[in-house]
């Protein structure tokens, strides 16, 4: 083989590689359709006093109040929309009213639903902190949990629970009786309808169920009747993680705003990503660090009625408030 042939082969290899990279980028790295959000303020620091946190993990917003699961302190803290402390409830423990590592939160018709990792249950409180009832117990049977990670509540009161160590999502009636599940109990999978440590769930206004499929680095969507609707997160959404638009590095929270947009806490990428209801990437915000607008692991997000977004900055033990900066482009 002479030098001319070698050069030709090398040139062709370079061309093919460039085409693959460009094609892959165009196919799997979408551009933003909205401008990033604008950082407004942040509050909190490490500690156990009012307004301090020790592992803040979950967040929910309703009626002008922000609810935060202060996990290691075993309590829920409540703030106004500007971060002023209002009240707290719960202490570490197993008895009703106590909390064992509260995780992602949901609010439905004046009640706060708390997924408890250590107690393997969902506990329901009034928004004033009054304990109301407990759903679930430890185990792998129907209506049982192995580390409840997140919960969503349907209009009819049914609960949807991310059952983290059982690798499934369960739908239960309000009294805890089993309705159905997605995923195979105790079995990890990367294909459609399978899970790899699901961390959270959310219900859209149209009844679509979104699942943060944590270690599969993706979001899965299911129709109200239960059928698989779609998934996104990296090429083919099959547990390929990365830092690009629309990709994830451990999805720890999924939340839906009143328009049906989907927000995802992208833990290791230190950012919040926003998608439309079909999973098309819209924008993202947050960069690594400790300053304004920086995250030291973004673990949760919640959207208020007016479009304001609150995010939990896990490693910095604080809550961040962001607002849309206005739409651009197409």
């Amino acid at each position, binding site marked *: 083989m002479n030098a001319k042939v070698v050069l030709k082969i090398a040139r062709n290899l370079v061309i093919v590689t460039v085409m693959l990279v460009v094609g892959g980028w165009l196919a799997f790295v979408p551009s933003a359709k909205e401008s990033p959000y604008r950082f407004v303020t942040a509050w909190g620091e490490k500690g156990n006093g009012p307004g301090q946190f020790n*592992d803040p*993990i979950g967040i929910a917003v309703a009626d002008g109040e922000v609810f935060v699961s202060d*996990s290691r302190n075993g309590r829920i803290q409540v703030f106004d929309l500007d971060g002023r402390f209002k009240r707290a409830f719960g202490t570490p423990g197993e008895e009703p009213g106590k909390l064992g*590592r509260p*995780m992602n939160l949901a609010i439905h018709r004046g009640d706060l639903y708390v997924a408890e*990792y*250590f107690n393997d249950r969902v506990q329901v409180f009034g928004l004033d902190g009054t304990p109301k009832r407990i759903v679930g117990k430890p185990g792998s049977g129907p209506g049982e949990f192995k*580390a409840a*990670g997140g919960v969503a509540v349907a209009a009819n009161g049914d609960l949807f629970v991310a059952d*983290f*160590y059982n690798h499934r999502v369960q739908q239960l009636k309000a009294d805890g009786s089993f309705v159905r599940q997605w995923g195979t109990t105790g079995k990890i999978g990367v294909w459609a309808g399978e899970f790899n*440590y699901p*961390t959270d769930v959310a219900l859209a206004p149209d009844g679509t169920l979104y699942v943060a499929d*944590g*270690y599969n680095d993706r979001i899965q969507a299911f129709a109200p009747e239960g059928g698989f609707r779609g998934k996104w997160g990296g090429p083919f959404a099959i547990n390929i993680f990365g830092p690009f638009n629309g990709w994830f590095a*451990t999805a*720890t929270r999924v939340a839906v705003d009143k328009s049906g947009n989907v927000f995802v806490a992208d*833990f*290791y990428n230190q950012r919040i990503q926003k998608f439309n209801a079909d999973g098309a990437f819209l924008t993202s915000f947050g960069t690594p660090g400790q300053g304004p607008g920086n995250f030291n*692991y973004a*673990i949760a997000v919640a959207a208020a009625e007016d479009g304001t977004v609150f995010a939990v900055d*896990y490693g910095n033990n604080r809550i961040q408030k962001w607002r849309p900066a206005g739409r651009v482009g197409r």
Partner: protein
Amino acid sequence: MKMTWRQTVLIVSLLLMSTAAVAAPQVYKLGVDGLACPFCAYGVEKKLKAVKGVEKVDVDIKTGNVIVTVVEGAVFDQATAKKAVTEAGFTLRGFEKIPQGTSK
């Protein structure tokens, strides 16, 4: 022999010191691969806390190090640690007993 008050104080102090030494907790450092976020860190913590004698578990997700404090007299060996970590879905890559006073 008549004991002076100084001798009494000395003997009581020595007895208290020796009791404290016997009752001192043991501290172990576990290296765990794959810890990614609080969801898995809490899983390791939950499993280790279920082991008899374990009174405290501190997980550092950045380094993957897990510091386990065990009450004096409890059995906590590498096999026990490995079982708990494996059941939590992770791999134990290191196990060492930390001499008291150097756990930080």
